[in-house]
Structure formats: C-alpha cells, structure tokens
C-alpha cells in the first residue's frame, strides 16, 4: 500500500517481517546482555552494600532495589503485551503476535518477583507476609492475567486463534493497570504510596535513590533482552520450514 510513497523508513518494514527482525536484532543482543548484566550487578552491589540503611526500617528496605524495578516492569510489560496484541489484531501482523506471546511469561515472572519480594519485605516491616489490600490484590490479579494469556496460547492448537483470544484477554486486562497504580491513593491500604512520582521529587534520600535508578535501568535492559530472546526463539520456531532458518541450522549462522 505504501509502495509508491513510502511513509515509513525501510528499516521499519524490515522490522515488520520476522526474518528481517531476526537479522536486525542479532547485533543488538550482546550489547543488551552486557548492559543489563553490568547495570544489575552494579545496582545490586550498590544497593546491598553501599547505600545507607533506612532510619526506621534498617536494612530490610534494601529489598526495594528489586521489588520496585520488578513491579515497574511487570506493569510496563503489560502495556507492551497489550499493545502488541492490539497491533496484531488490527494489522494482522505476525511479528506483533509473537511479541505478545514473548511478553507473557516474562511479565508473569516479574510480577511473581514483585509479589514474593514484597511478601518477604512485609514480614519484617509490617509484621505479616500477606494482606488482602487493594495494591497487593490487584497485583495478584495482574499475575493471573499474565497466566491467562500464557494458558490461552497453550489451549489452542491453531496459532491464529490462540493469538486472537489471548490478545482480547490482554486488552480486557488493561483496565487493571490504572487500578494498581492508583490503589494506594484511592483506598486505605497497608502498602505505602509511591516513592517515585512523575511530578514530584522522590521521597527518598539521593544516596538511596541513585542505586534504585541503576536497578530500574538494569531491569529495563533485562526486559528488552528477554523479550527479544523470546521473540527470536518464537520466530525460528514458526519459520522452521523456511530456507533461511534451515541454512542457519546447518551451520551457516547468519
């Protein structure tokens, strides 16, 4: 449709085809892996050993350095998944469906991390591992939404029907995301309000805040890395009967 007057640059169309996407992202992988590993390592050492302890909570607050970044990416990842699902539904783009499938287990794992670390943080600070307040319950709903998208992919033997059904579920689930964000402001919860706000300075001392920023950046890179790894693996599976994949398998790694 855009043959006479290309609206989008050439690389965009290459990204749209599974083969083009695979070849284009090949060179990104080592850089992403190294950046993610360095940021996560620096952030962990900084947060665990060098950030000062909290005046009230002592050292238990150090769990924030994985709890908050994991929760951030669990929420942002849901939008990635739902947006990919919407693009796949509207434009019938195969690659978008693959990205959506790749985002589901990654998001579920990050949600699980934030739930488990939150629980382990809750015991020494609140006095309980679990409480059914609005923030924690809506986060659990997010976990089940991710599991639902994964389950739908397994439930259908027809790939296209699976993509459609899970995209619809992902879109319906977007209603939960604003609730998670605002739950601590709208209702009485045991969970404290957000430390990092878009419009205000963070309510955290800079010595504690910088390692948190490093960890958030590290989790973002890690997310991109695993999303690409999953998508690339999915591309090879779906295109395993094509010449370029068979050639690659035979040793001529492109």
């Amino acid at each position, binding site marked *: 449709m855009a043959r006479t007057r290309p609206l989008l640059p050439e690389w965009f169309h290459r990204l749209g085809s599974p083969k083009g996407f695979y070849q284009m992202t090949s060179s990104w992988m080592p850089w992403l892996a190294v950046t993610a590993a360095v940021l996560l390592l620096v952030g962990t050492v900084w947060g665990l050993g060098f950030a000062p302890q909290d005046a009230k909570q002592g050292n238990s607050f150090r769990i924030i350095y994985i709890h908050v970044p994991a929760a951030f990416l669990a929420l942002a990842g849901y939008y990635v998944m739902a947006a990919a699902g919407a693009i796949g539904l509207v434009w019938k783009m195969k690659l978008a469906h693959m990205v959506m499938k790749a985002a589901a287990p990654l998001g579920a*794992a990050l949600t699980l991390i934030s739930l488990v670390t939150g629980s382990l943080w809750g015991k020494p600070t609140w006095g309980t591992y679990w409480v059914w307040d609005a923030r924690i319950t809506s986060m659990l709903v997010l976990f089940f939404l991710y599991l639902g998208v994964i389950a739908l992919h397994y439930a259908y033997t027809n790939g296209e029907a699976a993509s459609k059904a899970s995209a619809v579920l992902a879109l319906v689930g977007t209603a939960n995301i604003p609730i998670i964000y605002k739950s601590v402001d709208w209702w009485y919860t045991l969970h404290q309000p957000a430390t990092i706000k878009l419009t205000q300075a963070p309510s955290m001392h800079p010595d504690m805040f910088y390692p948190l920023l490093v960890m958030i950046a590290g989790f973002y890179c890690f997310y991109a890395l695993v999303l690409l790894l999953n998508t690339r693996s999915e591309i090879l*599976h779906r295109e395993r009967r094509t010449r370029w994949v068979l050639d690659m398998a*035979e040793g001529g790694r492109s």
Partner: protein
Amino acid sequence: MFQFDSLSAFIAMGGHGPYIWLSYLATALVLLWLVATPLLRTNRLMSALKRQQTLQHRESGKYQDISPGPRTEERSP
C-alpha cells in the same frame, strides 16, 4: 562507602538477613531461568533441524530436498 563493619554483619543485615538474601536469591534464580529458557529452546530446535537435514541429504544424495518431512508439532513441555 561500605556500610558494614564485617562480612558477618553484611550477611546478618541487622537481623533482616534471611528476608533480604532470600529475596535476592529468588530474583536471581527467576532472572536466570528467564534467560535460559529461550536459549535452550532455540538450541533444541536448531539441533533437531540440523539432524533432520543430515538425514535428508543422506536419503536423497543427488538433489537437495528442502521439504520438512513428516510434520511434527513440537511444543515445549
């Protein structure tokens, strides 16, 4: 500046050690699992394709057949 006087103080974390170290350990395991699964899945596929191709070359010596043989729907368990 390192916040702890000794290694044992670092491990104890002022009594919160078990919670903190368990959190970090669980996270590390999940992150490693996330990276390992797609890599292993890809490796399995590629070696299966390679095996299948070697077999085909052997069967059809003269010409190269790129048809994939019997359709097997593989799925990670």
